[in-house]
């Protein structure tokens, strides 16, 4: 968790503007921080979509929440108090325990729709669940080799898969996915910082990186040839995630 005060201090130090009023919080620094954070988010999503890196790179950004699926086998990613930028992994039927108290069995609550289960704590995954695309679903359905198929759905060898659509996670095979527990590992959609008491849910080690990018955004306005923008676009992809954007 990074606070505004930490980031501002780092930015002003890089610009050698400590104690001056050349850069103002609302006008310069907060928008620059938000721009830097949004590029972290974009780069992470891009990386997942293109399989150009490992989920391990995103480990420090990743959160895990427990849901129960709807009767139709989907999960709406709501109820956690923040929105989701991208899903890293889904684990159906994970090991769970109650957050408060012990020894009580965790039970599915009667509910047509999916439900965020903040009362349960994730202990560990049990079965792999492959990420597929919506276009693959009809192909998967009757192919017994592919994860998420319905052919083996009611045999001991059935396999899970999931796909994302319209902010929902759809579990496959659908005939097994009704009203089950499901752990979702995801990257939070960082809310924009609005004032100087705000924070960003990025790990502490990203302070200098974030401040560097924010400083670039601050100084971009002083760069008439916009050369700084090209540098930022190339660097935020390669420095943080070690991949190329082309």
């Amino acid at each position, binding site marked *: 968790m990074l606070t505004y005060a930490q980031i501002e201090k780092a930015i002003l130090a890089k610009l050698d503007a400590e104690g001056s009023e050349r850069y103002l919080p609302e006008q310069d620094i907060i928008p620059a921080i938000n721009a830097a954070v949004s590029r972290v988010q974009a780069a992470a999503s891009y990386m997942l979509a293109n*399989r150009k890196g490992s989920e391990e790179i995103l480990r420090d950004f990743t959160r895990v929440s427990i849901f129960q699926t709807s009767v139709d086998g989907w999960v709406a990613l709501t109820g956690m108090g923040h929105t989701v930028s991208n899903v890293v992994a889904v684990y159906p039927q994970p090991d769970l325990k109650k957050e408060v108290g012990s020894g009580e069995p965790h039970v599915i609550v009667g509910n047509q729709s999916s439900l965020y289960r903040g009362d349960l704590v994730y202990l560990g995954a049990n079965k792999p669940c492959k*990420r597929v695309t919506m276009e693959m679903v009809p192909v998967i359905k009757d192919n017994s*080799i592919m*994860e998420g198929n319905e052919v*083996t759905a009611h045999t001991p*060898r059935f*396999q899970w898969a999931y796909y994302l659509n319209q902010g929902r996670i759809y579990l496959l095979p659908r005939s097994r996915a009704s009203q089950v527990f499901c752990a979702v590992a995801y990257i939070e959609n960082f809310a924009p910082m609005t004032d100087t008491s705000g924070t960003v849910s990025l790990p502490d080690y990203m302070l200098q990186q974030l401040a560097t990018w924010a400083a670039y955004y601050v100084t971009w306005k002083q760069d008439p040839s916009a050369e700084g923008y090209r540098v930022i676009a190339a660097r935020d992809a390669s420095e943080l995630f070690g991949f190329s954007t082309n």
Partner: protein
Amino acid sequence: MTYRLFIDDIRVALGMVHDDALWSREPILMNVLYGLNLLGAQDLSRDLTTGDGLQGMHRRRVVCVPVEHISGCNECEWKHSYFELPSETYDLPYDGGITMVRYGKDSGCKPAVAGASFTITSLEHLSGLWDHPYQGPREDRPYVARYMSEDGKDRVGVFGISPLVKKLLVGVFYAPKYETVDLDEEIPLDIHRLHDLKRLVLTMSVWPLGLPQERYKNDGRDFEPDTVINTRPLISLNDPILNSGVKPVE
């Protein structure tokens, strides 16, 4: 060694151990069965040519099957009984995947014929023997022949037995069926041939490892200009694995 253990070893060898891996247990299992059946047919062929019958022990299963009786149709008096094959079998020369058929303890046959041996043959041969006084099918001289029924079932016709016989003891050359394989079952293969099996599966893995989907860009490009393509070592038809088990017929 169980299927699970063997497959997990291959997954680790290929680095396919994350949840989005292209090759998971199921496709590897399918490829294990391809290789297993190839090696199994070799071992059984060697049995047939050497006659010692010791190599294919993992593939012989003895099961008790229910028998149905057909009293013939309007056009012919082709009375016989049949049972459906209890598993997939190896199709081998001479025996049609069946190693033996016998009356069992609860078959319901007369005691006088309980020890009769069933001759495995084909419908063509049987047709020629049908009315033969000394060779035609009888309770103490039954015949067995495989055929496909009109509804596509893989049937084994049993000729000459009494309609009162309801069960038979059948030995088949059993081939594991993908749909019903339990990953915790032992692989039906001699342990010294597991290495051959692993090599066969790894050879087939060149396809998932070399597929374009791992290289494609979003705009549809595949290879970059001047990319050097390394061809993968494919197994030869003359590979020792594929020929080691079979000896020429003497």
